[in-house]
């Protein structure tokens, strides 16, 4: 298993390199850079700007700049954010954690519902429950996350139960540890709902289709013929096999979730990676953009890796040792 993980990580390096290089290229193609603002500022002397240019190698050709950036990363230096006036590592790591909390809670919430709903829909196939779930999932698939975010915020304004956006209350620092956790938990509710509704709808249908396919297979018929209890057939024999394809989806879902989370973060005001990236792109804060793209990519690779490992545990046909 260890060798497999190592192998996967090594193979994902070119992907990260590709993503970061593309991003670097895109930003450098854009006319102007973050120093333009400083150049327009009469209080900043020409010498200071030149110093900046030298320090960050902005006067060098594009490829050189990229490799300087790479070399610095190997040294653990992720560069300097001009708009936040802080090290990129500090800015991104705190935001990455926030995004991670949000994605994780959405992920958990999604999967708590997907499997039972899928099973129910499959068992009540073509009955009212199934049709109702199918109809709602249609709406859920089609409602864009940003619109759901607006709607939930609007509904939340009528009650005072839920905070309207953000991640912490104003008096957050005064709370005890438990209070802090509860406070963040409360703020999590709306973005989690918004992010998971869509995927619950889609995945629930896939789960249903998977289970129906497994239930139609000969070995289930065999188990029935041998007189095994219905519950045992369903939950031990069928469910386990119906879950396998879902786990692959689980890995890919991470990418979609990250992407969806960014927009919802911006609307709800959750201080995550999406907000920072948007800010960085707007102000052409190059190293911050690179840092957040790198962080997003790393999170993604991690998600896929976790899915593969889970699959290895659940499916005895897959043995990573031998490959």
């Amino acid at each position: 298993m260890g060798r497999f993980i190592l192998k996967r990580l090594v193979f994902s390096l070119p992907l990260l390199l590709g993503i970061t290089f593309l991003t670097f290229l895109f930003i450098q193609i854009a006319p102007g850079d973050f120093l333009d603002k400083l150049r327009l500022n009469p209080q900043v002397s020409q010498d200071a700007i030149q110093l900046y240019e030298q320090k960050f190698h902005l006067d060098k050709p594009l490829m050189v700049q990229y490799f300087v950036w790479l070399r610095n990363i190997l040294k653990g230096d992720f560069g300097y954010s001009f708009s936040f006036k802080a090290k990129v590592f500090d800015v991104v790591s705190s935001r990455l954690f926030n995004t991670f909390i949000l994605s994780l809670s959405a992920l958990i919430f999604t999967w708590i519902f997907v499997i039972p709903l899928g099973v129910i829909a499959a068992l009540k196939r073509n009955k009212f429950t199934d049709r109702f779930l199918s109809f709602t999932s249609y709406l859920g698939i089609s409602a864009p996350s940003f619109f759901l975010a607006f709607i939930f915020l609007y509904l939340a304004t009528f009650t005072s139960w839920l905070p309207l956006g953000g991640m912490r209350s104003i008096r957050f620092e005064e709370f005890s540890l438990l209070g802090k956790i509860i406070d963040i938990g409360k703020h999590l509710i709306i973005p989690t709902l918004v992010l998971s509704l869509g995927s619950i709808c889609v995945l629930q249908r896939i789960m249903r289709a998977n289970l129906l396919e497994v239930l139609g297979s000969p070995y289930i018929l065999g188990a029935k013929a041998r007189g095994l209890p219905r519950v045992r057939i369903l939950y031990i024999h069928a469910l386990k096999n119906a879950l396998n394809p879902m786990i692959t989806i689980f890995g890919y879902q991470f990418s979609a979730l990250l992407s969806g989370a960014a927009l919802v973060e911006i609307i709800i005001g959750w201080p995550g990676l999406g907000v920072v990236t948007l800010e960085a792109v707007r102000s052409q804060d190059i190293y911050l953009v690179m840092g957040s793209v790198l962080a997003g990519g790393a999170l993604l690779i991690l998600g896929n890796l976790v899915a593969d490992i889970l699959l290895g545990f659940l499916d005895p046909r897959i043995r990573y040792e031998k490959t």
Partner: protein
Amino acid sequence: MRILKEIIKNKAGRIALLVLVLLYFSVIFAPFFAPYPYDDDDVLHSYTPPTKIHFLNLKEKQFGPFIYGQTYEVSEYYQRIYQEDKSKIYPIKFFTKGFKYKFLGLWETDRHLFGVGEGKIYLLGADLKGRDIFTRILYGGRISLSIGLIGAAISLCIGLIIGGLSGYFGGRVDNITMRICEMVMMIPSFYLMLALRASFPPNLTSTQVYLLIIVILSFIGWASTARIIRGMAISLRENEYVYAAKAMGLSHFKIIIRHILPHTLSYALVAVVLRIPAYILGEASLSLIGLGIQDPEASWGNLLSSAMGIVNIRLFPWILIPGLFIVVTVVCFNMLGDTLRDILDPKRRIL
């Protein structure tokens, strides 16, 4: 034609098609249906709620649809509270004269579906600058709805060409293009969109932004189509008629165009319809965060951007209506796509 008939036979397909045709129709003739020009602002009507349409006033002996005039008071929180001014009555006239526009860009006219003369009618309320949201939805739909069609069509073309080439030739070409595809597909699309947008100057004209959004969205969308077309091309190239065409000395290019791609078309049609929502949403999200269509111009995403403040949503909920249009459009395209898939490929009825 046969496909169209089958769609109409299907209940969901019929409804979806009808709604979409209606939407596109009203958007194409936007100036005719809209009572005001899209940038017609009026500070005195900032955030007017949707105008109530009345049908009966016995005192003034007024029948038929009409609206009252409007006055406002400033509340203790310096917020305007609009009230109906019952002394002024403006009947709604149909096929009335309004602002001048070019009908379909051909001839000048000033006829509109409806108007109220001196008064101001806001069917779906007004925005900050007192512009009619109904009008702006119609004009914005021109951008949002056309970006969906054009973007999906372009990325389909790219996907067909690249997928066809790489599936047909195989080998190293195939390997490289598929790795590139995987990379594009793996990057979270929102971040890719931001990075791509970053590579262009922020202050572009509306037309430039419009074209740019199409380019960006097609760049993101081609990969998944290309992969599936490639898969089909690999199995198609082993067919006998392809060998026959090769033996007869047809060039590779012509074989791909004439014998490979036509077989993927029914899939391609479904893919286009099912992908259009992604483009509409892509444009909406870019415009929503202020990187897409800019203010005087309208698009459904950019109309929603005024809802970014929680206070605005609470006080003026009608600014969320453009979002409803997005949802309805997306639902309809999904329904249409599913119906199409069922018609073209009856084996794959999953959802």
